[in-house]
């Protein structure tokens, strides 16, 4: 996933490769600084704190409200409380949220047929917010709809379903009835996959696979309200003004791990104010939370005067510099390594707000991620951790590469922080002998612009946030041969990197997921280090998220998967 509000279509071409294997990673616990209050949904707590309105703020709405279309963290956080799939990520704090638990399915089945067949038994008696009952037919309808509405991850995640290739080619006539077999009598659904996929449960757990009732229009719902089975349901959406969620009248809690009942009666999400105004509102108690990071010059104030209302949590994400390996000067490995040596990651951390808000990193997998073993060759005194830039080494590498004096443009989004990072990188490039300039373009087009090879982007500043906790989501998605599509706006391998040996290793790790998960993790570790050595990108840091809450908000629970869990918070 790219960012908060920018929908991103993962390259369709990734599909075949991602579908080809599986990771089956262990849900290990990354280091987080969550301060979860007792996430208890006991009757006593519910009686004490039930009611009230949780008031959320954001600069802008997140786009379509269709859960199968929207691909933003802004709304995925909401879908956690309004939609359900067959399985879901556990409603728990910290890395416990990476555990997949049964949701509308009674249990998580064991795959058969070598990992290609998955049979789910549905729970009975669950209703959507519009009063309709959940049936096995909804599962088939939902997965056909994924292709009919062009879900951004249709190719990336769900093309592994047998027959999905035809749906990708002709979505309007998508028919998956042979590969998603519905049995209304036994209330079960059986998926037949084209290849084993150990990430299949992860893909079923994300909101794009949340069930919708038969008859939901097979087009983007846009601002229309989707029915759901969660504790809350959407009751109003005006993208220019606000989004309102209220209790789902048909909701009865069936699993606290999957879909817990919420404390507040109503959740409002208001759009359109500046971040400064939002922070002031929260300080004054007229709002409860903002999606936005507080402005740099308010951080000290928040950290001192409002420390008890601030929560800082590590995100599984990278800020990094993709370097185009097909364009000079970064078609030279030494030049790419030089950039890695030269970048002062502490300086980058300062731009983001200091060491409490980011951790320096120089490898592809972020801190706390499965398979990550600390590794940093690009530092003074190379070892596990980055310590300081090595400018002398960087200058020597630039000379050795024969790229001294080359013109380099750093393409950045023109918001305050990204631009500051770009200016810093430009300064670093100049200091090691390049003639660098900064090209700041609108944040609305930046992410697609830097993906398209026609734009001849040499180096850029960007971020990547995990969709789900699997090493492939960083290594294979960002640097796999199959995710490089010259001339396309959806070529998320911005470096254009394709090393056949490493790519084969990634495919091997993907296929080992079901049979040998531990072995797969070890191989991913090796791949991460090999990829870092090749330096198609320079990772700068892993960011931390700062949540600033109003005084009245209690029971802040931060999930590593979906961040703040709104249904767990109370306001009275």
């Amino acid at each position, binding site marked *: 996933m790219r960012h908060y509000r920018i929908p991103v279509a993962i390259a369709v071409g990734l599909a075949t490769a991602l579908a080809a294997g599986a990771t089956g990673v262990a849900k290990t616990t990354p280091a987080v600084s969550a301060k979860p209050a007792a996430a208890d949904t006991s009757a006593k707590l519910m009686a004490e704190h039930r009611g009230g309105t949780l008031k959320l703020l954001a600069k802008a709405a997140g786009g379509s409200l269709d859960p199968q279309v929207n691909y933003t963290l802004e709304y995925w956080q909401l879908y956690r409380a309004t939609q359900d799939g067959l399985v879901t990520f556990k409603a728990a704090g910290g890395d416990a949220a990476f555990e997949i638990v049964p949701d509308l399915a009674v249990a998580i089945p064991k795959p058969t047929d070598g990992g290609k067949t998955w049979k789910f038994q549905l729970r009975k008696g669950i209703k959507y917010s519009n009063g309709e009952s959940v049936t096995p037919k909804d599962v088939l309808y939902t997965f056909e709809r994924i292709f009919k509405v062009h879900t951004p991850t249709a190719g990336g995640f769900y093309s592994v379903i047998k027959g999905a290739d035809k749906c990708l080619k002709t979505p309007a006539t998508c028919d998956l009835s042979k590969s998603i077999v519905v049995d209304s009598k036994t209330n079960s659904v059986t998926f037949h996959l084209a290849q084993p996929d150990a990430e299949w449960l992860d893909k079923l757990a994300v909101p794009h696979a949340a069930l919708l009732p038969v008859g939901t229009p097979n087009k983007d719902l846009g601002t229309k309200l989707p029915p759901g089975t969660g504790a809350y349901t959407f009751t109003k959406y005006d993208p220019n003004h606000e989004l309102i969620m209220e209790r789902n009248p048909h909701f009865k809690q069936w699993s606290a791990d999957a879909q817990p009942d919420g404390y507040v009666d109503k959740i409002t999400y208001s759009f359109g104010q500046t971040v400064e105004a939002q922070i002031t509102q929260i300080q004054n108690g007229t709002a409860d939370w903002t999606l936005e990071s507080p*402005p*740099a*010059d*308010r*951080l*000290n*104030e*928040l*950290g*001192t*005067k409002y*420390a008890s209302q*601030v929560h*800082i949590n590590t995100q599984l994400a990278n800020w990094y510099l993709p370097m185009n390996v097909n364009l000079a000067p970064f078609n030279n490995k030494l030049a790419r390594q030089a950039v890695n040596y030269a970048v*002062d990651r*502490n*300086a980058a951390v*300062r*731009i983001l*707000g*200091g*060491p*409490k*808000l980011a951790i320096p990193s120089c490898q592809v997998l972020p801190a706390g991620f499965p398979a990550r073993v600390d590794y940093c060759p690009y530092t003074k005194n190379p070892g596990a951790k980055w310590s300081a830039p090595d400018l002398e080494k960087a200058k020597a590498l630039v000379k050795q590469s024969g790229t001294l004096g080359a013109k380099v*443009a750093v393409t950045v989004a*023109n918001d*305050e922080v990204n*631009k*500051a990072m*770009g*200016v*810093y990188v*430009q*300064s*670093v490039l*100049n*200091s090691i002998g390049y003639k660098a*300039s*900064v*090209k*700041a*373009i*609108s944040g609305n*087009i930046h992410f697609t*612009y830097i993906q398209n090879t026609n*734009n001849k982007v040499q180096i850029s500043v960007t971020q990547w946030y995990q969709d789900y906790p699997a090493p492939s989501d960083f290594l294979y998605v960002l640097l796999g041969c199959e995710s490089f599509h010259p001339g396309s706006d959806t070529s998320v391998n911005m470096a254009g990197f394709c090393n056949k040996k490493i790519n084969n290793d990634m495919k091997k790790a993907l296929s080992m997921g079901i049979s040998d998960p531990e072995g797969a993790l070890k191989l991913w570790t090796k791949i991460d280090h090999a990829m870092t050595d090749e330096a198609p990108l320079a990772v700068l840091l892993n960011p931390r998220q*700062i949540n600033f809450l109003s005084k009245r908000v209690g029971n802040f629970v931060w999930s590593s998967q979906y961040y703040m869990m709104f249904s767990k918070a109370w306001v009275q």
Partner: protein
Amino acid sequence: MAEVVAAAGDVGTARVVGRSPWALAGRRLLRNRVALAALTGFCVIVVSCLAAGWYADSVAHTHPFESSLDGTTIIDGKESPVMVESTGGLGLGVTPIGPTWDIHHYFLGADDQGRDVAARLLYGGRNSLLIALASAALCCFFATIIALTAGFFGGIVDQILSRTLDVIWAFPVFLAAISISTVALTRGISVGPVTLSASSLWLPILIISVIYVPYVARPIRGQVLSVREKEFVEASIGLGASNWRLIFSEVLPNVVTTVIVFFPLMIAINMLTESALSFLSIGVQPPDASWGTIIADGQGLLYTRPWVAIAPGLMIAATVLCLNVLGDGVRDALDPRARLRMGRMSRR
């Protein structure tokens, strides 16, 4: 030397003998103390900005275009970091140092990259002034050519040129500038053998000059239409003068005063436009600075380091004030109606 003779008993009308209109205008301008003060102020600003390199190298000893996130400076005789990490409470945030009021060490403090604001202010002024002056010159040049052609030849030529100006002017100025800038900054501009990179200062110069051409051209065209009907033009036509001779020898000298009046005003307007575009990140591109980009840099520091935004704001205000007052003075000096005012002033 020319002399001024005031007829005895005719105090109301000063008669000027033997002076060219330009000399008269110059004399009137020199007698306008407010305009002179504005000109002096503008010159001081220009000279200060031209001394940016000297200030950065020899006085402040800083590099205004390189990040200095790990840099240090001297405050009260002690070495201090330029970017100060918060140590109170949760230890959130990194704040650049504020004004030291020491001309050798971060006089106006540092920006979010740890760069010397005072040095950047002077370098930024260079770019702001360059863009404003160059775009005003280009704008006035193109506007004059178009106005002369349209007004003198009339007919279909006038229709085409005037309607084209109307179309350009129909777009809100900033919307047009933002649209063109956004496209140009994404790919640069390439016309035939001429290629302008996205970071070229020529981009804002050209964009700003083009969008204001109708603003200057339309009143000049009106004057051309009026002058073209004058007797001395008819006389020249009767003597067989060519069109080009008529335009450059008869019409142009009679409208050029309007262009001269417009020029300082256009510098002021263009400076504000450039600042606005740069503030929106679609003017001068980083790490180059202009007063607009420095205000944008300071926007995120308004709570803790307001001087980063206030200083360039003051410079823009001062420069535009000087140019507007100077523009008024030039208009008073060149506008024939101003003679009456000046006459009345001289009688007091």
